[in-house]
């Protein structure tokens, strides 16, 4: 009787681990945290089930091998995180990132934990900043703040990056800086609207149905348009963000920029 459960069902369970979560681990875990006595740890059959659950529900963001795709490399992040905190992260998600909470049964979360623990952790967590963070911050201020926001400063045409260090693997950051058109976060697809009098409005697509489209234009004006009033809606393949190729941003600067971005873990809105 499985009906159209795809997107919602999957979103409810994808997995991400953050250093913000590591900060939050200092708070005592709830007394009834099921991960305190996880019967699946080390159990071969459970690990296999956990692998399957991971692939269906987590791998899209964290990669089939858990080494990160858009989401962080889990093998690098889990070393210092207790299972109780990991369980809470799976259950509640990570605020300010694409990582949602899960309504899956406790046992399924425990199976995923058993699988991840079986992967083992690498010795050098990638969360440790590399490169010259100060230079990265300068580069960011010069090249990126026009469109991206950190805290209360910066533009709004691109995604808010206040917690990007918690949400992206290093490889994902490299990819999204070098080739931003490879993937658009939802709500940031590039569109150009052509009005009947020929005016062109370029921006990011925030929402759309068969009869209307809602955009933020390059002047950060959010506005809805009736398609019946438009001559054309052009869905562009290019991102509004320029591709920072090696000619535009050399490898050292890229390394510095990423070093800075990985420090951006923002205030966790769930921590009060």
């Amino acid at each position, binding site marked *: *009787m*499985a*009906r*159209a*459960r*795809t*997107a919602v*069902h*999957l979103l409810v369970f994808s997995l991400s681990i953050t250093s913000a979560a590591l900060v939050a681990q200092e708070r005592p875990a709830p007394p009834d945290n099921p991960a305190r006595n996880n019967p699946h740890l080390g159990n071969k*059959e459970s690990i*296999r*089930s956990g*692998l*399957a*659950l991971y*692939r*269906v*529900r987590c*791998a*899209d963001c964290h990669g*089939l091998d858990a080494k990160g795709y858009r989401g962080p490399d889990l093998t690098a992040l889990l070393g210092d995180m207790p299972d109780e905190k990991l369980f809470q992260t799976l259950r509640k998600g990570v605020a300010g990132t694409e990582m949602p909470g899960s309504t899956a*049964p406790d046992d399924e979360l425990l199976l995923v934990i058993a699988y991840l623990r079986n992967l083992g952790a690498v010795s050098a967590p990638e969360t440790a900043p590399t490169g010259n963070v100060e230079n990265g911050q300068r580069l960011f201020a010069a090249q990126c703040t026009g469109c991206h926001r950190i805290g209360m400063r910066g533009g709004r045409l691109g995604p808010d990056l206040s917690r990007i260090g918690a949400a992206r693997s290093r490889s994902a950051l490299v990819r999204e800086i070098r080739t931003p058109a490879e*993937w658009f976060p939802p709500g940031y697809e590039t569109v150009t609207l052509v009005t009947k009098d020929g005016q062109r409005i370029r921006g990011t697509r925030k929402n*759309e*149905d*068969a*009869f209307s489209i809602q955009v933020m234009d390059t002047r950060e004006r959010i506005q809805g348009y009736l398609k019946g009033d438009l001559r054309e809606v052009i869905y562009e393949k290019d991102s509004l963000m320029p591709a920072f190729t090696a000619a535009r941003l050399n490898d050292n600067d890229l390394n510095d920029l990423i070093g800075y971005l990985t420090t951006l873990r923002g205030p966790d809105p769930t921590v009060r």
Partner: protein
Amino acid sequence: MRTLLLAFAASVTLAAQGAAPQVTPQDLLDGLKDPGKWLTYGGDYSGTRHSPLTQITPENVGQLASQWMFQTGTLGSFQTTPLVVDGIIYATGFNNHAWAIDARTGRPIWRYRRNLPENLHVCCGAVNRGFAALGDRLFMTTIDAHLVSLDMKTGDVLWDVELADFKVGYSATVAPLVVKDKVIVGIAGAEFGIRGFIDAYDAQTGRRAWRFFTVASPDDPIGGRSWPPTSDAWQRGGGSIWVTGTYDPQQNLLFFGTGNPGPDYYSNAREGDNLYTASLVAIDADTGQRRWHYQFTPHDVHDWDSTQVPVLGDLTINGQPRKVVMFANRNGFFYTIDRVTGKVIVARPFVETTWAKEIGPDGRPVLLPGHLPDEEGTKTCPDLGGGTNFMSPSYDPTSHLFFVTARETCATYFAFDQKFKPGEQWESGGTTRPRDQKNFGALRAIDPVTATVKWEFRYPSVSSSGVLTTASGLVFAGDGDGNIMAFDSRTGKNLWHYQLGFAMRATAGTTYMLDGRQYLLVPSGSMLTAFALPSEQRTQR
């Protein structure tokens, strides 16, 4: 004084006893002939969702305006098709709440609440798809796998019978179908390792008349060999029934689409075709005996329940009149099937379909390699939501066009061996959306004689909305973004739309006449909205 009161009471009782029942078996056979009624899930036994009403036309539909709204005030969305009897709407909602509502004003008259147990096992929400009616009684399945009969006047429970044990994963969401004196229902729970069935209950007493298992036992001469002979896989073989079937009075045959086999994705332990899952079954309405079956997806491994509405119609094919059942399947193919013999007349994909090349002359799909889910994941189109799903299609017998909400989707399917534990979800796999996969939806008009798409209207996102057609040449459908829309049935031209604020999900518009006005009634989210024309626009054709 006492004598006077007694006499009054007696006269009231006699009047009540003498009142004609509100819904008779003949009314159900007449279907939508009475313009003031909508008496069953699909409007009539054929499941066409085609109304003879003509006040709202392609010319004036642009003037449709909201007349009233009814908010349930509860969590959860409608998946119901409301019934309309004598100016009253009867609607079921989330968690088996139900209401009687004044069809003129949207004001509630009574409300039914069910005390549901806390440890329910449901894959996809505590939804319900509607009432059936007979006499002065309503019938509703419940998420804790019961069938209840309610008094149409008060909402009081008249009887309540258990279909199966909810604690091991059985549940019920289907709108019942009343045929003669029986209430036909089905059971759900294939994601929990249940063995599906279709039941008939006496409408007066609630006593079970017959049961047809949708998963064949080893002693079934036809279906028994389609399960492993040395295991009990059939005992948890799935085959849910969660969308209402249709009925052919001439043949006294019920038609039901059956759900996926269990477990959904990992199939090593259920070798064989797994009859009668993912099939269309034709069963005798009096006895529950199978007359014929056709399996759309033998040994399904993609969770493609065939629980879509089997739509009945009469076509002329190659100069010959044929009694057919039309079926847009979740597996991506559209089928026109002879409903006397169960043989496929024509079948073609109506969405992108990568798992099968075609339906062969023997009626079996000609499989393409590389579409068996495994631990690494295999990409297949359509996704588990299917080319279409539980949203009702509609068939216009005048234009001979079949209208369906189509989904253009693909998925990466995973499968793994998962131990069965009673009462626990048991799918043995799952799906993800492939990177860069751009899904979209469409309303498509299909010629059932050739199984080809005649026109389409695309939606930016997929939709789960059903379809309604009217004799004035209109198609009403919903997109995935909250719009209810009207189209010219012959051209697909969009004529009207209204933003409801929540997408119609498994619901479709219904229509009825009341006080000389044609209403369009639309469930979406937790709201019913009634539309009609302004008075100056109302001219009967």
